[in-house]
């Protein structure tokens, strides 16, 4: 049907914009009600002043549409994987029109950026350290404190 196709297309564009905007926002995004819908009298300046994404959506919905197959109320969508995390929205319908969309889950992707640990050097071999039972003539290690040296020396001397 004409109206629902446009609405679905509009919603698709809307969500694409939301996913895009996650890359540039930190705070929880809440889509504020556009003036054009709240204010029933026509507002000719509205579409340029609306937040970018919503103008496309709302201007495509004719003011006198009979999209009343959507019952008034607030509805929660399923949660979907957006790669860096989940996205879940709730939508509010009023007088057959979308009047609010709210994010219930969004990926705080900036805190889940991949931590490059030493796995970033995959071409160098690694192994768990293991105690070796072996006779050696000398040992390389970090510096002893003087006290430790004296203790070690006296314990060695006690065996001599």
């Amino acid at each position, binding site marked *: 049907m004409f109206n629902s196709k446009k609405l679905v297309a509009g919603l698709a564009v809307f969500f694409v914009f939301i996913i895009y905007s996650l890359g540039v926002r930190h705070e929880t995004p809440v889509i504020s009600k556009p003036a054009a819908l709240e204010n029933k009298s026509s507002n000719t300046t509205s579409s340029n002043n609306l937040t970018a994404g919503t103008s496309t959506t709302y201007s495509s919905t004719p003011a006198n549409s009979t999209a009343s197959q959507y019952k008034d109320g607030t509805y929660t969508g399923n949660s979907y994987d957006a790669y860096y995390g989940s996205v879940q929205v709730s939508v509010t319908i009023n007088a057959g029109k979308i009047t609010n969309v709210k994010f219930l889950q969004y990926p705080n992707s900036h805190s889940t950026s991949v931590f490059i*640990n*030493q796995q970033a*050097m995959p*071409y*160098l*071999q*690694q*192994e*768990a*350290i*293991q*105690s*070796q039972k*072996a*006779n*050696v*003539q*000398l*040992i*390389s*290690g*970090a*510096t*002893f*404190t*003087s006290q*430790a*040296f004296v203790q070690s*020396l006296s314990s060695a001397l006690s065996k001599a």
Partner: protein
Amino acid sequence: MGMPITVEVVDNIDDTEFEAIFTYFKAVDERYSTYKTTSEISQINHGLPENQWSSEMRLVLDLCEQTKRLTNGYFDINRNGNLDPSGLVKGWSINNAAKKLLDLGIVNFYIEAGGDIQVHGINASNKSWEVGIRNPFNIDEIIKVIKLHDEGVATSGTYIRGEHIYNPFDKNQKISRVKSLTVIGPNVYESDRYATAAFAMGETGITFIDSIPGLEGYMVDDHKLATFTKGFDRYTA
């Protein structure tokens, strides 16, 4: 400085020649120890004019500057406005002492100071020198045995003296992920200065060592995992 020094000479050596090695190290300590207020480095840090610096000190400071360039700034002897060249002097002085023995015709020996080692020739059993790498989590254990002939070995670590190695690019950062880094090089001067710099790089230090021809490294992190350079195994088993 003020660290224990061990010298083992397999060949025959005169007592006076042997003692001369320890006398040399004492002189190095007198000049470069930041713990001695009378040392030349302490006097420099208290404002001794440059025209009164010894030529040897100038040489050492030049070597420190060169090392800083070679390590992209990670070897840096500046400590809160004071100079502390001990990260280079230790290996440099051991290397000098080894040269003194070689000049005497001594071929089979090792010199060890503060965990840094220069070996030469073969041990008393006519085999390569067998050097253990200390377990940074248990100083009574060794975690690796390396067999050396003429190389130098230096280990930088945090487990005994505390975190005495600084990242010159972030003085508040504690080098916590790397517990110890052992570097094998053609001589202990090279091993020591590169181990000092690479340790300050944190986890990428071992990659830096891998990129330098002639150096091999073995790094232990705080999860008891070791990472080693591509040619390191030529010194094991």
